C-alpha cells in the first residue's frame, strides 16, 4: 500500500528528463543578476548564518540577488550530481574535498579558480593547507569554508572516576574501553545506520596502518591492478574495527542507530567515548557543558606502517559551476563569504572552525576547539573522509562491507577481496573511457 506516494520510477525519470531539457535563464546586462547558491546545511542555525551573509552581500551589491537552497548531508550526495547534470546548475555549490570534487573538475563542470584567487589579497586570508584537497592537476577548483577533523571525545567524570588517562596507544585505548565496560558503561557510542560513520573509523585506521604512498596509489586507482587494496594494513584496519565491536566496546545495534542518537547517548552520560567531528564539539558543549568532556587523537594505528601523525578530516568548501552565467558575481559572493569578517562571525555563531586565517580565536570559539585546531595544524597532513575520497562504486562495496563486518556476516579478508575486485573493475572501466 505504498503505491501512490512514489510512483517514483517514472516520475523520477520524467523529472530528470525535464531537468536535462530545462532552459537556463538569461539576463540582460543591466538587469539584476540572480545567482544560485546550493549547500548542505539546512539546520536552522546554519540557515540563519547564511541568510545573514546574503543580506549583507545584497546590501553591498544591490544588483545581485542570491537564491539559497539547502538539503541535508545524505540527500545532498544524490541531489548535487543530478542538479549538476541538469540545465539549471547552481552558480556556487558545496562540495566535499577529494574525489567528490575532482569528479566535477574532471568532467569540466567546475570553474578553475586560480586566476581569481592567486596573487590577490584573498590568497592570504585562507588557510593554505586546506586548499590542497581541492586541487587537481595543479589547478584550484574549490575554496574551503571550514575545517573539520575527527577526534575521540570522552566523558571527563567517568575517566576521573575510573582513574583513566587519555590513551596514547592502541593498547591503552583498548584498556580504557575494557575499564569502562567493567564499570558497566558503554565504552564507545556509535551509530552506523548510514555507514559513513564506520568509514570515518576505517579511513583513520587505513591512514595509520597503510603506508601513505601505497594508500594514495590505491585510492586514486593508480596502483598495479594486482595490488589494488591488497596491503595487509587494510585487513588489519577492518580487524581492529571488528575487535572493538566483538569485545562489546560499541553500543548494541550500531547498525540500526543514527549518529545523532548515538551522540545523544554520549551527552546523556550513557557512554564513555565517541568518535566525533570537530564541528560537533559545540553541540556537545551546549548539551553537556564545555567542561564535562575532553578530547584526544584516536590512537588507532600503533605499530602500523602508515603516518601516525595524519589526521582524519577534511576542509568543507564551495565550488563555482563552469556553466554559471554570472561567474564574476558568483566569485564576488564567494569572496564576500570567505572573508575575515564573515569567517569570524561563522565561528562565533556556529562554533565551527572556519578556514579563514585567524577566524577561530579564544574570543570567538570554545577553548577546546581552538586547542584541537592547534593539534590539527601540527599534523603532517589530512586523511580525507574515506567515503568522499575514493570512487563511489568502490564506496558502495566498501561501506556495506563494514556493516557486514559489524554484524559478523563477513570477515575482513572477504570484504577486502570484494573491494579489490570492484577496484580492478573500476580501474579497467576508467581506462576504456
Amino acid at each position, binding site marked *: *500500500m*505504498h*503505491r501512490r*506516494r*512514489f*510512483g*517514483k*520510477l*517514472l516520475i*523520477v*525519470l*520524467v523529472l530528470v*528528463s525535464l531537468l536535462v531539457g530545462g532552459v537556463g535563464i538569461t539576463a540582460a546586462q543591466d538587469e539584476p543578476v540572480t545567482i544560485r547558491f546550493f549547500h548542505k546545511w539546512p539546520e536552522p542555525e546554519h540557515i540563519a548564518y547564511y541568510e545573514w551573509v546574503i543580506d549583507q552581500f545584497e546590501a553591498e551589491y544591490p544588483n545581485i540577488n542570491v537564491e539559497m537552497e539547502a538539503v541535508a548531508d545524505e540527500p545532498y*550526495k*544524490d*541531489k548535487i*550530481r*543530478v542538479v*549538476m*547534470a541538469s540545465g539549471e546548475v547552481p552558480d556556487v555549490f558545496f562540495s566535499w574535498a577529494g574525489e567528490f570534487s575532482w*569528479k*566535477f573538475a574532471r*568532467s569540466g*563542470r567546475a570553474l578553475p579558480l586560480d586566476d581569481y584567487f592567486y596573487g590577490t589579497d584573498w590568497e592570504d586570508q585562507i588557510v593554505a593547507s586546506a586548499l590542497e584537497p581541492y586541487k587537481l592537476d595543479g589547478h584550484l577548483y574549490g575554496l574551503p569554508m571550514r575545517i573539520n577533523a575527527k577526534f575521540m571525545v570522552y566523558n571527563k567524570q567517568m575517566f576521573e572516576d575510573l582513574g583513566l588517562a587519555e590513551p596514547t596507544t592502541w593498547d591503552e585505548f583498548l584498556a580504557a574501553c575494557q575499564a569502562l565496560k567493567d564499570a558497566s558503561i558503554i565504552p564507545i557510542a556509535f551509530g552506523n*545506520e*548510514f*555507514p559513513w560513520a564506520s568509514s570515518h573509523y576505517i579511513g583513520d585506521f587505513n591512514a595509520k596502518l597503510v603506508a601513505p604512498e601505497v594508500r594514495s596509489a590505491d585510492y586514486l586507482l593508480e596502483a598495479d591492478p594486482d595490488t589494488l587494496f591488497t596491503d595487509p594494513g587494510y585487513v588489519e584496519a577492518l580487524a581492529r574495527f571488528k575487535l572493538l565491536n566483538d569485545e562489546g566496546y560499541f*553500543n*548494541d*545495534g*550500531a*547498525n*540500526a*542507530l*543514527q549518529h545523532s*542518537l548515538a551522540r545523544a*547517548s554520549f551527552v546523556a552520560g550513557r557512554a564513555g567515548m565517541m568518535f566525533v567531528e570537530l564541528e560537533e564539539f559545540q553541540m556537545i558543549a551546549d548539551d553537556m557543558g564545555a567542561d564535562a568532556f575532553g578530547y584526544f587523537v584516536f590512537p588507532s594505528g600503533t605499530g602500523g606502517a602508515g603516518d601516525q601523525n595524519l589526521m582524519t578530516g577534511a576542509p568543507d568548501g564551495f565550488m563555482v559551476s563552469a556553466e554559471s552565467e554570472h561567474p564574476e558575481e558568483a566569485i564576488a559572493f564567494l569572496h564576500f563569504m570567505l572573508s575575515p569578517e564573515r569567517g569570524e562571525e561563522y565561528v562565533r555563531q556556529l562554533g565551527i572552525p572556519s578556514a579563514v586565517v585567524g577566524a577561530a580565536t579564544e574570543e570567538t570559539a570554545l577553548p577546546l576547539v581552538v586547542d584541537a585546531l592547534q593539534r590539527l595544524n601540527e599534523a603532517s597532513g589530512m586523511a580525507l573522509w574515506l567515503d568522499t575520497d575514493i570512487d*563511489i*562504486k568502490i564506496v*558502495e562495496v566498501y561501506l*556495506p*562491507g563494514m*556493516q*557486514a563486518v*559489524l*554484524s559478523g*556476516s*563477513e570477515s575482513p579478508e572477504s570484504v577486502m577481496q570484494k573491494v579489490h575486485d570492484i577496484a580492478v573493475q573500476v580501474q579497467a572501466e576508467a581506462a*576504456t*573511457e
Partner: protein
Amino acid sequence: MASLGLSRWRKYVTPYLFLLPTLIIMIVFVYHPIVENFRSSLYNWNTFSGQENWRYVGLDNYRRVFDDPIFYTSIKNNIWYAVISVAVQVCFSLGLAALLESTLLSRFSSSFFRTVLFLPSVLAVTIIGITWMLMLNPSTGLVNQVLDEIGLAAVKHTWLGEEGTAIFSVIGVSQWQWTGYVMILFIVAIQAIPHELYEAARIDGANGLQQFWHITVPGVRETFLVMTTITVIGAFKVFDIVWVMTAGGPNHASEVLGNYLYRVGFRNDEMGYASALAGVMFLITFALSFAQIRFNGTMSRETE
C-alpha cells in the same frame, strides 16, 4: 453528399478528440519515458556525461542485472514483502472487517476499533518510519523493553541492525500502517452485500463462520482481487518506508528493487545500469497486472 460525409466523419473522430488530451499526457509522461528508459539501458552513462559520451553496451546491463547478487536479495525481499502483505493486509484484514461488521461487537466498539485501526494509514510514512525506529532501538526502544518485561528476553533482537531481521521489521511496520486501510475498503464491500442473504442463511441455521465463508467471501471477491493486485504491485514498488528505516542496510540485507534502483542511479551514478534495473522492475509489475486483469476477467465471466 457532403453533409453526410461530415457527420460520419464527426461520428468517428469525436471520441478520439475527447481521448486526445489524455492520450497526449499518457504518451509524454508514461509511454515515452518507458521507451526512453529502454534506450538508455543499452548505454553506459552517468549524469555528467553528455549524450555524446554514452557508451553503447547492448544488453550487457541486463546481463549484469542477472549476475548481481544484490538484485536477487532485492527480489527476494520484494517477494517476502508481497507474500506477507497479501497474508496480512488482504486476508487478515478481511477477517478483521468481517469481525467488525458482525453482531459480535457492539456498535460503539466496532466504530472505535475501526477508527483506531484506520489511523496509522493517515500518517506520513517518514513519521511512521522514524517513530518505529525509536521503538525498535535495541537498548532504549519500547519493543525490546516489553519483551524483557514479559520474560521473552531470548527473542530480543537489534531489529533493524541485523541482516536476518531488518527487512522483516520494515515489512511488519508496513503491515501495521496499511492493514486498517484495506480493512475499511472491505467493510465498504461487506456493507454492499444484501442483508437478506445473511438473514436467509441464519434462518437456514448457518453459523458465523459459515456465513463468512459462503456469503462474505464471495461477496467481496472483486474487492479482494483488486486489493491483492494493488498490494502485490505495491510490494514490488516499495521505496519510502525501507529508505527511511534502513536505507537498504545493513550490508544490502534489506535492499528492495526500488531502493536499489535509486542507489545505483543517484548514488553510484550508473544511470545505464539503473535503467536496466528499472526495465526489469517494469516487466515484473507489468506481468503481474496483466495476469491479474486476465484472472479477474475469467472470474467475473464465471460469476455472470
